[in-house]
């Protein structure tokens, strides 16, 4: 154990980081008195360089994680919103690709964004998109895996999600708005309806798939470990027109699963 761990006083004499950092995220706080310019020069503008570096780099980190949100709001609106958030909730990890998990909830509470009720769900999709981007590499379930299961055992099959798989449900057309604004293409009118999305990554390509009604209930059940029969029943209850073979085929093709598991019916009693 080091001295600093057992002697609070040792830590205190070293702790220049407390006064230095206290004013970094508070523009109205005075410049800390422990720093100065050279040869009796003032430290205000000099200290502001650090303030600026911290705030601007965190705004840039949020902008790089949430480009569709930035395109929707415009850069000035986004910068103001991100500045509020960065000062209120700075990162707790040095891995900036982990930053911004609280940003969608912040957008929900942000007064100036009240007219854009779907904006936070677009942010949620972008946050999950980045998690899928960085998730572990793993082979995806191949399309033939289900064909070797005897028909009477299919219902008991369970599916393991691929590490990149994310499921998003929105009361708004957030998937369509995300897709329109993520690039630089034209944007148009969007029909106001709830939307669900499946996010997956095949090789280097992250894709957000718009799910047909009932499919989110189905996929949600599978991702929570329920068997195929139970997931299908839940989906049919939510959406009578649910197409089971279409849904499972599309999800496998999208790379949503890494493998399937089934109960072995042929184990002899001991």
């Amino acid at each position: 154990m080091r001295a600093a761990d057992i002697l609070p006083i040792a830590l205190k004499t070293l702790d220049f980081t407390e006064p230095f950092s206290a004013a970094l995220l508070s523009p109205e706080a005075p410049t800390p008195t422990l720093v100065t310019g050279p040869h009796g020069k003032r430290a205000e503008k000099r200290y502001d360089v650090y303030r600026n570096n911290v705030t601007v780099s965190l705004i840039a980190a949020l902008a790089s994680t949430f480009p569709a949100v930035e395109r929707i709001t415009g850069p000035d609106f986004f910068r103001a919103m991100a500045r509020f958030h960065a000062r209120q909730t700075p990162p707790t990890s040095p891995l900036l690709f982990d930053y911004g998990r609280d940003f969608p909830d912040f957008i929900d509470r942000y007064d100036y964004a009240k007219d854009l009720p779907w904006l936070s769900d677009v942010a949620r999709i972008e946050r999950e998109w980045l998690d899928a981007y960085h998730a572990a590499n793993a082979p995806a379930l191949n399309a033939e895996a289900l064909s070797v299961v005897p028909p009477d055992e299919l219902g008991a099959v369970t599916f393991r999600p691929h590490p990149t798989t994310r499921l998003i449900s929105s009361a708004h057309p957030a998937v369509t708005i995300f897709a329109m604004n993520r690039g630089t293409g034209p944007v148009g009118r969007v029909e106001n309806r709830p939307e669900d999305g499946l996010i997956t990554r095949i090789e280097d390509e992250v894709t957000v798939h718009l799910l047909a009604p009932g499919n989110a209930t189905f996929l949600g059940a599978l991702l929570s470990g329920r068997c195929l029969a139970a997931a299908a029943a839940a989906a049919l209850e939510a959406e009578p027109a649910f197409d089971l073979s279409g849904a499972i085929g599309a999800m496998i093709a999208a790379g949503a699963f890494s493998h399937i598991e089934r109960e072995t019916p042929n184990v002899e009693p001991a």
Partner: protein
Amino acid sequence: MAKVDMTPHSPMRTEAAPRFPTMSLAGQAGTSFKPEHLAAICAETGRQGFFEVHAENYMGAGGPPHRALERVRRDHPISLHGVCMSLGGSQPLDRKHLSRFKGLVDRYQPALVSEHLAWSTHRNTYLNDLLPLPYTAATLSHVCDHVDQMQTAIGRPILLENPSTYVLYVDSSMSETDFIRQISRRTGCGLLLDVNNVFVSATNQGFSALDYLRDFPLSSVGEIHLAGHAEQQDDEGERLLIDSHDGPVADAVWRLYDIVIARCGPIPTLIEWDSKIPDWPVLRAEALAAQAILDRQTNGREQFHARS
């Protein structure tokens, strides 16, 4: 009741990580690696110098960043540059971060590993900037503990980079060059001399860059950084340089670099360019300018040996 895996792969298995043999970067100039340059780098034949990456950008579990770095590392030596270990801070190092860092060193076998004489974390808050520390006997011993801890954790020595600074601490009792010399002496770490940082700090703090370089323990330098800077004004309306890494290397920094290389020989040199990133040929041209200065030294030394 048993469960049967229906696919040929076991669920926890990930793709086998490639093995990377050691590659030397002696006498070479390199560049920051930016993923947007990957296609251009791969399209050229032959080695494009070495590449330096910010370690933290490759601490995700998988995906495109690792695929890109594996591709680059296959044909080039890399330098692993840590930006947020917070070695200069007063709190204990983040053990999880140390172990992630070690994982990257093991996986990519970098030719160089470096970190900063700075801090960036306070309590639970990551401030995302390289913040300055006072130079005192107490902070010296603390930084040395941290450098020791990092070198032990990753199993090899690091290069420690001199900072660019905008303020001074009232409490500082040692010069930066003394402070750095002591760290290197006590921990055995090498040094990363950022010549742009020297120029930026010298301008901002009103000292002579040449004096600083004269005092600097140049024999411990294992890598040099060159970068562009921006210009603002301080409270007195005088020039305040910002270490912005967003443009070409300034002429004054090239002149200092020339002097360092003439004195030390061809030390691996990196062009850092982290924002307003240009097309690959522009960045590569900057590295080739450094390479020309390195080659002049290498060739000059060979001729000298041939004559003697």
